């Protein structure tokens, strides 16, 4: 099992679970995911952060049943998508890296299509959400801006009324304003309903104030899983030269200012930024890999 530090953020029913999850695309190649153990409890937004190739998309695709695990299993609300994909998918709303819209169809037609595929699709809610963003429903989506397309895709996912939303870097290509709109829409929509969201993203700065917990995924392995409070208050960044107990040290890394720093675990005393926490755990992963 590959888990440097895995913490269950809170008690409650498990919405998403990975047990010993390994995904290897080709024999003889490094695993995209290597023995991941992960429990995400129901309700709240969890950010899935990591560099390119860390396995974020692979993990989400395993939950969707788009990828079959090489070993281990995943469950969505207790359902293994490898065994019963339709039932697992009935509990999921999804937005991918590509917005996945038909350029020749209007937003309205997308809602109609979604309604024909999902019996309980909330068309009225989706219409209201689009109207709230001033998105014209009668215009082909090819003519909408990237931000508007992302909002249409999010409206489709939210309209499913699914208890779990899986979002695979949906904001990666958006400008900061569109990213903020997307994330605040998401936050407001899911908080009221208690939806569980797993949001893969590169852009850590956008996540503060939106997400409730954080998973740092280094290539193939979970490096940190905890609440945002745990991540920030439980860690501190100190000069690398200061005295650090070996048990405290997560990793040392070079900060943006060029200074050598260390991320340390100091529950209740720290005040690290999310950036620091992510950098620290990714540096730890790099150090572990280099040592191996």
């Amino acid at each position, binding site marked *: 099992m590959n888990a440097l530090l895995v913490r269950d953020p809170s008690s409650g029913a498990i919405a998403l679970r990975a047990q010993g999850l390994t995904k290897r695309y080709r024999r003889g190649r490094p695993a995209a995911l290597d023995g991941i153990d992960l429990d995400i409890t129901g309700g709240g937004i969890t950010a899935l952060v990591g560099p390119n190739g860390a396995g974020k998309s692979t993990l989400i695709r395993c939950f*969707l049943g*788009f990828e079959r695990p090489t070993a281990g299993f995943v469950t969505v609300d207790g359902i293994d998508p490898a065994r019963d994909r339709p039932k697992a998918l009935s509990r*999921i709303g999804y937005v991918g890296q590509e917005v*996945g*819209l*038909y350029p*020749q169809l209007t937003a309205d037609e997308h809602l109609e*299509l979604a309604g024909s*595929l*999902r019996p309980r699709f909330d068309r009225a809610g989706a219409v209201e959400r689009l109207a709230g963003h001033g998105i014209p429903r009668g215009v082909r989506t090819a003519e909408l801006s990237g931000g508007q397309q992302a909002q249409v895709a999010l409206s489709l996912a939210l309209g499913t009324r699914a208890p779990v939303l899986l979002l695979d870097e949906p904001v990666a290509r958006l400008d900061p304003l569109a990213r903020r709109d997307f994330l605040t829409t998401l936050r407001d929509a899911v908080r009221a309903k208690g939806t569980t969201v797993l949001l893969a993203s590169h852009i850590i700065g956008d996540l503060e104030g939106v997400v409730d917990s954080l998973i740092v995924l280094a290539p193939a392995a979970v490096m940190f899983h905890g609440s945002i409070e745990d991540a920030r208050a439980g860690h501190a960044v100190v000069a690398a030269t200061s005295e650090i107990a070996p048990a405290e040290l997560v990793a040392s890394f070079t900060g943006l200012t060029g200074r050598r720093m260390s991320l340390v675990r100091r529950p209740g005393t720290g005040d690290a930024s999310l950036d620091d926490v992510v950098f620290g755990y990714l540096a730890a992963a790099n150090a572990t890999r280099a040592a191996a």
Partner: protein
Amino acid sequence: MASRFRMAVRIQRFEVWSCVLLIAVVGITALIVRARLDGVGASAECLTPWIFENVVYDAARCDPLSEAFFRIKRDEAGLVMTAMNALPLVVGLLLGVGLVGREIEGGTAATVWALAGSRRRWLLGRLVPILVILGALLVFAGITSEILAAGRVPWQFGRPAFDDAGLHGPGVVARGLAAFGLALAVGAWSGRMLPTILMSALLTLFLGIGGYLLLNTWVEANAHEVAVPSWYNGEYDGGKFIGEFYRLPDGSEVGPFTDVRALAPAGVDPDTWVADDVRVIAIGVHAPDYPAWVVTEIAVFGAFGLAWLAATFAIVERRRPF
């Protein structure tokens, strides 16, 4: 259901309208050419007087009519029938290639497969409307080509049968469905449009060639002795012949290129002997055998198309949506 139908057509709007246009142009042209053939007013007695008894050929009246008829038959009807070689295959290919392949390439497969849950249900929802449209278009093409094919051979009294076999009637529908199934499966397997188009076009070409090979094989397997009248000139009843010989009065058979007159018994006028006692025999199939070929054609191409459709369900069920 109506909503799904509408959406399926909207998603493949370009292909659907291209196919409607293609079929309409060829089908309506076939009807126009048929009308032009009929409009010449050349009776069967004028066109093939030798097959009728007690007909006096009126050259002054019939020659210009015959010339006009055969010119339209060759230049215009021939062109339409040539187009019918490719039309059902092209239409099947056009509608099949993008149905799954473009969804995967365009990234929409992930969205709709996640929304639908059951991929089988999604594929059925996409497939049925397009199959209904394809079927309607192919039936129209089959009927109009049948009407034209019958008009090309008035001396066969509306039975084109093996003349232009595969290019008219139910064979058109069967070929189109086979090409559709093939392109659909290749698209689902490759998930990329350009490779799918190239690969499907090549395989569809083989499918077309396979149609001719199938016909020849079937004719050889089902060939039987067919008595032909002495005036036989190669086309008289919509049959397809693969061999000819002469049967002499003693039951022996000699090849078609034998100088039969030289075999006449001594003291008998060779011409009288040939006319009265020697029979021209053909080996092959004739018009009454045509329905059996149509059943075979539909069964083979239909099974081919259905096998690819079934393969598509299996591919879609297992593959990644990207």
